């Protein structure tokens, strides 16, 4: 066996110079096609969108007029506040349900855990359009929940759909599997010996959780939180179908500007604003992943 094959994850230790150049060129050539797609479909649209929003309609130098117009509209400001609020509430609820579930699945071996382990993945395979519609039939006034409440003697039905509550409930339904899978993958990587060790020196469950599990699972937690935020914030289908008319989430607002009011410049301006808001958490996400990638190598 040659020296290079000892550890499959180790970088090839400085091969002969020609070989290294050849490999570098081959590697770049192989990764080029998907990178071109990415450049054409993500980078280029994003850059042209920003440039377009800074260019005045009548020609002339760059201006912030588009942003002033969008941010000057009271309804749009309300939509921004609504979007951020709904997103934060959704992420908090998903997280509050998913972390205990991930812990339970990691540390329990019973039949209930096995059933839960299959059950929680179901929404992952249901298209969001169907999920939204299913939630409507379930939650709508005179829907299934109302029927059950009526049969139980309740005559006053809470409004569960076509408002913020509906959006949050549907976001929770759709995002639980994803959050549990990411958190669970992180928990799986924690060595049982560490937890047993903490128990042996007298740490209770809460203490073990706070001082062993939480810090060791910090990176997957950050990834889950940021992806959830970006996912909910950038959603369209759920607020479009399950949400109310006004205030609307930004995804609905920008699509309306593009396809209903035919105001492309406004739509793109709102999109760029959404990018900016999400980029704050996007930075945290990429930093977390690159930290873990470094650890994995």
């Amino acid at each position: 066996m040659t020296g290079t094959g000892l550890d499959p994850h180790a970088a090839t230790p400085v091969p002969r110079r020609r070989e290294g150049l050849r490999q570098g060129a081959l590697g770049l050539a192989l990764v080029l096609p998907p990178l071109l797609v990415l450049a054409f479909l993500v980078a280029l649209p994003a850059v042209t969108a920003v440039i377009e929003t800074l260019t005045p309609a009548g020609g002339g130098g760059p201006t912030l007029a588009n942003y002033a117009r969008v941010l000057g509209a009271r309804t749009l400001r309300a939509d921004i506040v609504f979007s951020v609020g709904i997103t934060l509430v959704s992420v908090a609820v998903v997280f509050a349900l998913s972390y205990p579930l991930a812990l339970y699945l990691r540390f329990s071996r019973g039949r209930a855990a096995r059933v839960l382990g299959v059950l929680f993945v179901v929404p992952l395979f249901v298209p969001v359009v169907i999920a939204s519609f299913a939630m409507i039939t379930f939650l709508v006034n005179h829907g299934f929940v109302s029927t059950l409440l009526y049969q139980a003697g309740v005559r006053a039905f809470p409004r569960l759909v076509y408002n913020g509550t509906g959006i949050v409930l549907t976001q929770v339904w759709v995002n639980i599997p994803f959050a549990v899978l990411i958190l669970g993958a992180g928990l799986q990587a924690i060595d049982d010996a560490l937890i047993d060790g903490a128990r042996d020196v007298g740490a209770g469950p809460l203490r073990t959780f706070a001082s062993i599990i939480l810090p060791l699972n910090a990176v997957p937690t950050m990834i889950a939180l940021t992806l959830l935020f970006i996912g909910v914030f950038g959603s369209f289908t759920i607020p479009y179908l399950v949400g109310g008319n006004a205030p609307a989430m930004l995804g609905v607002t920008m699509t309306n500007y593009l396809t209903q009011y035919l105001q492309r410049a406004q739509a793109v301006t709102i999109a760029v604003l959404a990018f900016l808001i999400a980029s704050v958490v996007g930075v945290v996400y990429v930093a977390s992943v690159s930290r873990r990638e470094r650890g994995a190598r």
Partner: protein
Amino acid sequence: MTAVLWPWAAGALRRAAGIAALLALASFILGPLLTLLLWAFAGTWLFPNLWPEFSLRWWTYVLGNADVEKAIRMSLMSAPTATLISAVICIPAAYAFARLEFPAKRVLLLSFLSANAFPKIGLYVSIATLLYRLDLMDTFTGVVLIQLVNTLLFMIWIPTGTFRGINRNLEEAARDAGAGPLRTFFQITLPIALPGIIVAGLFAFIAAFDEAQGTLIVGTPNHMTMPVLMYNLVLSYPQPVGAVFSILLSLPSLVLLLLAQRYLRAGYLAAGYSL
């Protein structure tokens, strides 16, 4: 609550809490789906009744609809095309990310997350303005491109992880026995990596097939896929129509999942998310 989490906590309490959580979660997750299923076979379902009057008449209505047929054809053409293009360009790239050393490798691999680091709908609106300039709005190409964006991450990251996990010694043994690099790849590496690639392909296909919001913007009015048509059905048709169509729409993903379930059970699902 914390008692639930620990193997050494009291057994009975743990079991009771587990069962309560199971029931609550089961009704939250399955309730909407079962309601939808009932609606699909309901002729009419008047309010305080627990059960609908069963009938199949909405099925004949939906299956006889020309728009439905057109959308099914569009979906079955565009999603496989996007998945195939994605596989062809991404799998060699994934191999390179896993095995070869080249400049800026880590940054390039991370750049595939960029599609995830933006709010999706904002990205689609920006892509739409670009496609508008290129005269690709309301075309098959435009629809495939939108679906392609959603497949890249799965097709790069899952196979990269799979290739990384393959022992280099196997490949080197084949090389030592005189096989060329291409032969080694196709006869040794690819077969071992196949389960991971199948899972990646499955996720990519589902992502492409279920893509609705971008296609709504780019494909209307003449290139509507099934999920896009679903928006119309939900908003302006009686509930059973949407319910019947939901079942049609879930069929392809469901069949693929059943076919691929042994790979999913083998832990590739979690592996995809631990990347």
